[in-house]
């Protein structure tokens, strides 16, 4: 009995964390980063001027004399700080000029005449939470990755410096192959690809439902979050800011809440290439070399399209412990991305690989767009309970460190391993107003242990309210989950009314009773028109779109670039960090300013004697 108790705890934790994009709390060796010295944009001062401050006793005419001695010109004395603005003679330069003036005993101090620019800081209200774009050492709110929160100021993509030069990625379409995108989100609507002329008025395609509406029908928000990281509208006073302030995001739905297939994904890549996308983001992974998928990556390459993919969230070495695709595909148009935390340590869940994973990017506590509000319920109020159904606080690990969970259980003493009654027909339900949503989906976790094929647990919904089991939309299961908490769900798209009742049932026959039903983590995910909702998430899924946005930004700044130029710029413009050294192909964290500075070595050098 005790063993079962412990197993309930362990499995439960794993399953819950698994929902958050597989950030499994496995103990791994975390390498701590060494603070890197970053070079600053240059030139940052006037190359032939100085500001010289004489000691207080020096009279005005001696100042001019001292300056003329060096062959320089006295421009003016600045008030009120007493600095003299000096024009250096040609050829001196600021460095040598400072040395000469510092040697003069009548001079108190000397400095360059620095140049200042308006810095591109967006006014979006959540920008201050976006540590990956600008890390001030801020604490991220609603964070689910506790390590290094807050992190280290300056460990970021240097976006503000880059935005001084480019923030508009409109010239390069970015395809998001994912769970669909809520293209009406307040921070995405203006930055979606316009496919109207090609017959795709909804900004992409849905390869699961085979129609032209890539809205996340199952309210799975992953793709909306990814899209926001790439191109949430910048400087619109709303929510977050994308790597690109302006973008053209093509939404291609290839994943449901339970995953995707070769058929959908390969069609998605093909569509992206055929309709002009130059960057494809795929925050997804599988474990098997897939020839059809591989062929599509090559097709993208042959059309000059870059593919940015996630390394995976199993804390594995992709070179050795397991293979992860598309990360492990070897085409040169593919960049595989690991996740970094707020101190630029490798995230504990992130995969890595010295030959398969290329770069790192911010991938924890990442705030981005979400399709709609999540209705969470802890069974505290509003529930109609019959029979033995009871809302309890259940301490699954006994005296262990995990706080009790709010659960809906049957029997009432489920937490103490009691047994349900014979001849039960118990229901528990609650009514929700889902009338304002475009889509809705129920998700929950449950433990089940009933006599197989005679005793059943059920889920049901009814759009007109009341006992949902008096309606037609009922799903039942029987048997045991072997003390695993498993995911349950129900599509509520046909229950989008003001009186949608949702509930559970336990029914049993006259013989044999088992442990029964325990439900937790009840939530209804939604898609809302013009959503203003944001979510903080962890995963290499969140790291990859930071790089996809960067690729589009680099390409927009350098429109003559070919796909290898962009790949070189992303990889070689990155910032070397200790945490990635030896476990990625570059050892670098992507850096926007570094990539804009990066220059490919000239090619085609030839000489002719004349």
């Amino acid at each position, binding site marked *: 009995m005790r063993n079962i108790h412990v197993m309930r705890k362990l499995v439960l934790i794993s399953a819950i964390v698994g929902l958050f994009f597989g950030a499994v709390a496995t103990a791994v060796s975390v390498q701590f980063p060494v603070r890197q010295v970053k070079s600053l944009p240059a030139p940052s001062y006037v190359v032939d001027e100085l500001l010289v401050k004489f000691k207080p006793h020096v009279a005005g005419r001696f100042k001019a004399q001292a300056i003329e001695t060096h062959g320089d010109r006295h421009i003016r004395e600045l008030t009120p700080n007493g600095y003299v603005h000096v024009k250096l003679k040609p050829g001196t330069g600021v460095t040598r000029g400072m040395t000469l003036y510092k040697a003069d005993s009548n001079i108190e101090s000397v400095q360059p005449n620095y140049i200042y620019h308006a810095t591109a800081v967006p006014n979006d209200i959540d920008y201050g939470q976006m540590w990956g774009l600008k890390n001030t050492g801020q604490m991220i709110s609603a964070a689910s990755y506790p390590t290094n929160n807050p992190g280290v100021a300056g460990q970021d993509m240097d976006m503000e410096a880059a935005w001084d030069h480019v923030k508009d990625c409109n010239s390069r379409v970015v395809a998001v192959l994912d769970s669909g995108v809520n293209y009406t989100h307040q921070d995405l609507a203006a930055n979606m690809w316009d496919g109207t002329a090609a017959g795709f008025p909804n900004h992409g395609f849905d390869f699961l439902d085979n129609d032209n509406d890539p809205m996340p029908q199952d309210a799975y928000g992953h793709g909306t979050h990814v899209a926001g990281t790439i191109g949430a509208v910048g400087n619109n006073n709303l929510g977050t800011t994308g790597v690109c302030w302006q973008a053209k995001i093509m939404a291609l739905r290839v994943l449901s809440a339970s995953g995707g297939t070769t058929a959908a994904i390969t069609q998605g890549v093909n569509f992206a290439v055929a309709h002009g996308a130059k960057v494809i983001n795929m925050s997804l992974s599988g474990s098997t070399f897939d020839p059809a998928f591989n062929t599509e990556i090559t097709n993208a390459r042959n059309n000059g399209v870059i593919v940015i993919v996630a390394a995976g969230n199993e804390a594995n070495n992709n070179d050795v412990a397991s293979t992860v695709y598309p990360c492990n595909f070897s085409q040169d148009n593919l960049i595989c991305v690991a996740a970094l935390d707020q101190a630029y340590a490798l995230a504990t869940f992130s995969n890595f690989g010295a030959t398969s994973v290329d770069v790192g990017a911010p991938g924890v506590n990442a705030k981005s767009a979400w399709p709609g509000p999540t209705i969470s319920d802890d069974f505290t109020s509003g529930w109609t309970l019959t029979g033995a159904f009871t809302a309890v606080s259940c301490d699954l690990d006994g005296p262990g460190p995990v706080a009790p969970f709010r659960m809906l259980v049957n029997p009432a003493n489920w937490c103490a391993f009691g047994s349900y009654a014979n001849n039960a027909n118990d229901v528990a339900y609650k009514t929700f107003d889902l009338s304002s949503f475009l889509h809705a989906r129920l998700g929950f976790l449950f433990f089940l242990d009933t006599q197989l094929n005679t005793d059943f647990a059920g889920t049901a919904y009814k759009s007109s309210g009341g006992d949902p089991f008096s309606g037609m939309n009922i799903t039942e299961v029987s048997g045991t989950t072997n003390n695993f908490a498993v995911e349950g769900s129900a599509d509520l798209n046909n229950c989008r009314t003001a009186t949608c009742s949702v509930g559970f049932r336990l029914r049993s026959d006259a013989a044999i009773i088992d442990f029964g039903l325990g439900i937790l983590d009840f939530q209804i995910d939604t898609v809302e028109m013009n959503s203003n909702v944001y979510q903080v998430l962890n995963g290499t899924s969140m790291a990859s779109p930071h790089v996809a946005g960067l690729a589009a930004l680099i390409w927009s700044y350098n429109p003559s670039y070919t796909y290898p130029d962009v790949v070189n710029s992303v990889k070689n413009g990155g910032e070397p960090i200790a945490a990635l050294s030896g476990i990625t192909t570059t050892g670098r964290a992507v850096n926007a300013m570094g990539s804009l500075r990066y220059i490919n070595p000239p090619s085609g050098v*030839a000489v002719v004697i*004349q």
Partner: protein
Amino acid sequence: MKIRTSVMLVYSVALVTLLGLAACGGGGGGGGSGTTSSVQVSWTANRETAVNSPGGGYKVYYSSTAGFNIASANVIDVPYAAGATPTSTTLSLLTGTHYIKVIAYSTLNPGGSTPSAEIAITAP
């Protein structure tokens, strides 16, 4: 009379300037006595926008030592000029074998790219 003097002075300055430029070019190219050849170095234009913009351009380094370090080599700056991306320049090289590398630079990256592959040329 004053006007004529003034004009003559201007001519004189212009002449000195021309001579000065010619002398400077000869000294820089030949580096002293000996036979020199005129060698045209060309390259493919870089695709970085900032290289082919004001403040950007290319530098051609040359040396008589194979595998030379550009920090201690002769250099010709070939800056971007309005509307024209430079893709060649001419060197005066003494008789013998010379090695050449090209870098590209920009206002964002005044230090420039890593050098191109080194090529050798034997001046007659």
